[in-house]
């Protein structure tokens, strides 16, 4: 039904596509962008670990205290 339009669309898209060329430094640009983002992610992860470390340490101490209590100890040890 619309085969005329389909053909015209295909031709127009093909012609428009052939007029598109990327810049020669595109690859270097993408590499730089990836490297910058990766270093930002590493820095953010490091900061997060520093923030999380005291909380995790406090949690561990609380867990050890709890597991030393007689009630927990009795339940945790196998017969």
């Amino acid at each position: 039904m619309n085969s005329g339009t389909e053909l015209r669309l295909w031709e127009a898209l093909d012609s428009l596509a052939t007029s598109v060329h990327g810049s020669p430094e595109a690859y270097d640009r993408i590499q730089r962008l990836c490297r910058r983002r990766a270093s930002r992610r590493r820095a953010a992860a490091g900061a997060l670990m520093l923030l999380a470390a005291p909380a995790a340490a406090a949690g561990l101490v609380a867990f050890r205290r709890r597991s030393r209590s007689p009630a927990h100890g009795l339940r945790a040890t196998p017969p």
Partner: protein
Amino acid sequence: MFDQHYSRLLRLAVLLGAGADAEDVVAEAFCQLHRRWSRLRTPDAAAGYLRSIVCNQTRMQLRHRKVVRRYAERHVDEPVLSAEAQALLRDDQRLVVDALRVLPARQREALVLRYWLDLKEAEIAATMGISPGAVKSHTARGIAKLTRLVQDGAR
């Protein structure tokens, strides 16, 4: 990977209406692929993944442009065809390209993926993140509207 896919993705971004932002869109796609490379099921999935990101990013750019145009006082330039494209396109082809730009983003995506990339319905569905039935309906509505617009423009 870059050599194999870059120019095709760049063309896809331009055809979808990214205009001058096309290179940014494709650069973003490669960066996202780089970040999530380990999560890919197979390396063969990379091409489809890149295509999906280009579609999503272009849609986001268009939406952003629309919002800026609505709220910002400064004038936002509509993407225009490059001088080379102007020279290469015949009048009737320019009419089709202009009509394509008026279509809703989803319909335009379905038509470009179908008629330019020659993808199958299932591949288009995977790229756009919709069902094959929705692809059918977007394609049919898109082509019908395009026909109307081109006929109106030719008069």
